[in-house]
């Protein structure tokens, strides 16, 4: 597949760009943050996103989705990045939908995917247990009990964990703490006995929760995929999430960059526009190149996922590494070039810087992805 959008994808892009700019601009994030909103996003917006078909963009048509795949999902998340829009899109429509699509039985898919696509059901993925991403490091235990299992452990920083209607929990049914084998995924009702949920306030005003599992009883029917075979499902979900985060980081970078270039054209200093300073021109031109590179590798990662390309994990790692670094550079340069005003809370650019760092960190930063690139390329 060529590295250009097809007509369908271009339509998705246009509608997503328009939708988020109009319905969920940065002002909405600011309002939710200042009001310390308990939900952390606008449920009305989420309903509209479902109506637009965004919540089910990557879910197959047979399960109520649009079946448009990851390139389309990435375009939506890029628009989210440009506007810093808040919603459970990543956790429910990307991570959880991918995990269920990849690992779920026909019954589970039929029961859950249409509800995710319609926005009625928010599902969150509770995988990581470490502050730095180490997807195979899982200590949460799942011990056989009755016709099912009892789960005990803790999951910090679960995205949208505080509003989820269902949790996908990665727990260990066998193996040592860092083995990839022996990990099993479970569908858990957050209202079940033994589940505790504490909301976390994050630098980027995103929503996360620390989830405690104290002998939570689950049924055999709540197992997602094979027992002990959860890691492959998890990796598929994480790669979908990483590719979409790359797209979001691309949106964050592009928006910060454009805002900065505009500022360079209108801000006067020492009697001239600051955009006339060659040192700033060269830095801006370099950043332009970096963002174009980030755009190419992100599109390739999303395309490779859609094509089932065996090298998809490599392209995803490359994209996440590149966009993470580029977004940090773009937002840092934005703040520096804006000077004092860029440091004030009143100005929006700080929100972009915060989100850039958090998204770059989520599911593996450039160091993690670089190591993964080296492993996948066998060195």
């Amino acid at each position: 597949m060529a590295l250009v959008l097809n007509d369908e994808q271009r339509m998705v892009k246009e509608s997503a760009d328009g939708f988020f700019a109009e319905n969920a601009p940065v002002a909405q994030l600011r309002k939710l943050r200042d009001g310390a909103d308990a939900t952390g996003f606008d449920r009305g917006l989420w309903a509209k996103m479902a109506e637009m078909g965004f919540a089910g963009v990557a879910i197959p048509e047979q399960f109520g989705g649009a079946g448009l795949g990851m390139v389309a999902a990435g375009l939506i998340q890029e628009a989210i990045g440009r506007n810093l829009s808040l919603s459970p899109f990543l956790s429910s429509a990307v991570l959880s939908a991918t995990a269920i699509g990849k690992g779920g039985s026909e019954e589970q898919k039929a029961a859950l995917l249409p509800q995710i696509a319609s926005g009625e059901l928010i599902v969150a993925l509770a995988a990581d247990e470490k502050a730095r991403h180490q997807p195979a490091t899982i200590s949460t235990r799942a011990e056989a009990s009755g016709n099912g299992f009892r789960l005990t452990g803790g999951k910090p920083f679960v995205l949208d964990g505080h509003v989820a209607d269902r949790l996908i929990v990665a727990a260990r049914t066998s193996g040592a703490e860092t083995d990839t084998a022996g990990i099993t995924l479970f569908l858990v009702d957050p209202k079940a006995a033994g589940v505790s949920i504490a909301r976390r306030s994050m630098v980027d005003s995103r929503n996360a929760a620390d989830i405690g599992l104290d002998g939570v009883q689950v049924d055999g029917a709540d197992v997602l995929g094979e027992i002990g075979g959860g890691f492959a499902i998890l990796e598929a979900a994480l790669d979908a999430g990483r590719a979409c985060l790359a797209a979001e980081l691309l949106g964050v970078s592009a928006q910060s960059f454009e805002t900065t270039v505009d500022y360079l054209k209108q801000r006067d200093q020492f009697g001239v526009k600051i955009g006339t300073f060659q040192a700033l021109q060269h830095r801006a031109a370099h950043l332009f190149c970096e963002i174009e590179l980030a755009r190419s590798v992100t599109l390739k990662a999303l395309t490779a996922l859609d094509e089932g390309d065996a090298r998809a994990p490599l392209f995803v790692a490359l994209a996440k590494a590149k966009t993470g670094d580029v977004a940090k550079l773009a937002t840092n340069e934005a703040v520096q070039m804006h000077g004092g005003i860029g440091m004030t809370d009143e100005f929006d650019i700080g929100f972009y810087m915060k989100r850039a760092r958090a998204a770059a960190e989520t599911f593996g930063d450039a160091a993690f992805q670089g190591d993964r690139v080296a492993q996948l390329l066998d060195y």
Partner: protein
Amino acid sequence: MDETAELAAFRAETRAWLEANCPDEMRSPGAGDDDMCWGGRKWTFKSEAQKQWLERMAAKGWTVPEWPQEYGGGGLSKDEAKILAQEMRRIRARSPLSSFGIWMLGPALLKYGNEAQKKEHLPKIARGEIRWCQGYSEPGAGSDLASLRTSAVLDGDEFVVNGSKIWTSYADKADWIFCLVRTEPDAPKHLGISFLLFDMDSPGVSTSPIKLISGYSPFCQTFFDNVRVPAENLMGTRGKGWDIAKYLLTHEREMIGDMGSPGGVSMRDVARQEIGTDADGRLNDPLLRVDVARFDVDSYAFALTMERVKDEAKAGQGTGAMSSLLKYYGTELNKRRQELLMSITGSDGLSWEGEGIRDGALAKDWLRSRANSIEGGTSEVQLNIIAKRVLQLPGA
């Protein structure tokens, strides 16, 4: 190195005096801003010990050891002051007084003030009676400080000040302000500026705090609405205030540049704890280990440069051109340090508020550090200065 008998005697006396007079509570590094003593009319001491310590030190003039005794200083020589500092460090004594008056206005007053101004202001600074803030930057001026528009028009024997200042640290807590104003609106921009001192309680002065991306900050915007300032409060020559400003900016650069040196939270400790080490003691994340090592190379090289600059200055070999280097490199290095700490701590570091040990402090430090390369002359301005003054490149 042998100390002269005189200096040895001074050291012994000083040690004894400190032992007798420094309260126990003052013998530990404070936990940051909250444990500092800033003084001033509105100051509430955090403890009896803090009050005692300030009063005792001020009585000896040791809040400003090298200032002349007639202005409330200790009248110490460079060598004596160094011994006092060493002896204070020995018992980990806190600084008795933090003050822009001491750090910034005082040196400028000693150099540019008239006798009446020195007599009036220096002792009050030394005793922590008056707290000062700095009125330099203006909204919209940014790096182009000299484009300031706050006006001071002589009306009889008073200046009438109108305008606004931004980034005035602690303006809401300060008693007086030292302030750059434009007295000659028609002169070339660097020549129409004067340096005024006035009381923040004067009618027409108001302040409003600035919230930063890192949260609440000591910065304020300050507004002047027909503030009347006695003409004798002009410091230095009318229209020559820019010289004083440049003198003070060099001071400020050096203070801010200090931040890149190793110190504060040990990155290595944080890294060992957060990332863990393998059987050989190596950090478990090889890529981050590389970043920490590369940071250490630059961080040590920078700290040693500060040391060398000080040693050269002592030996009379200083070139005087290094303050821009220290400001530029130190602040860029501190930003890198904070970035790296964030990478090391992962989602822990991303917490904003809450029950975590760090309580958002890491993220706030990270965000706050982004301003280091903007305030006190941006990195770009420092590079311009180096290109012009040190390298003497054409058109710089």
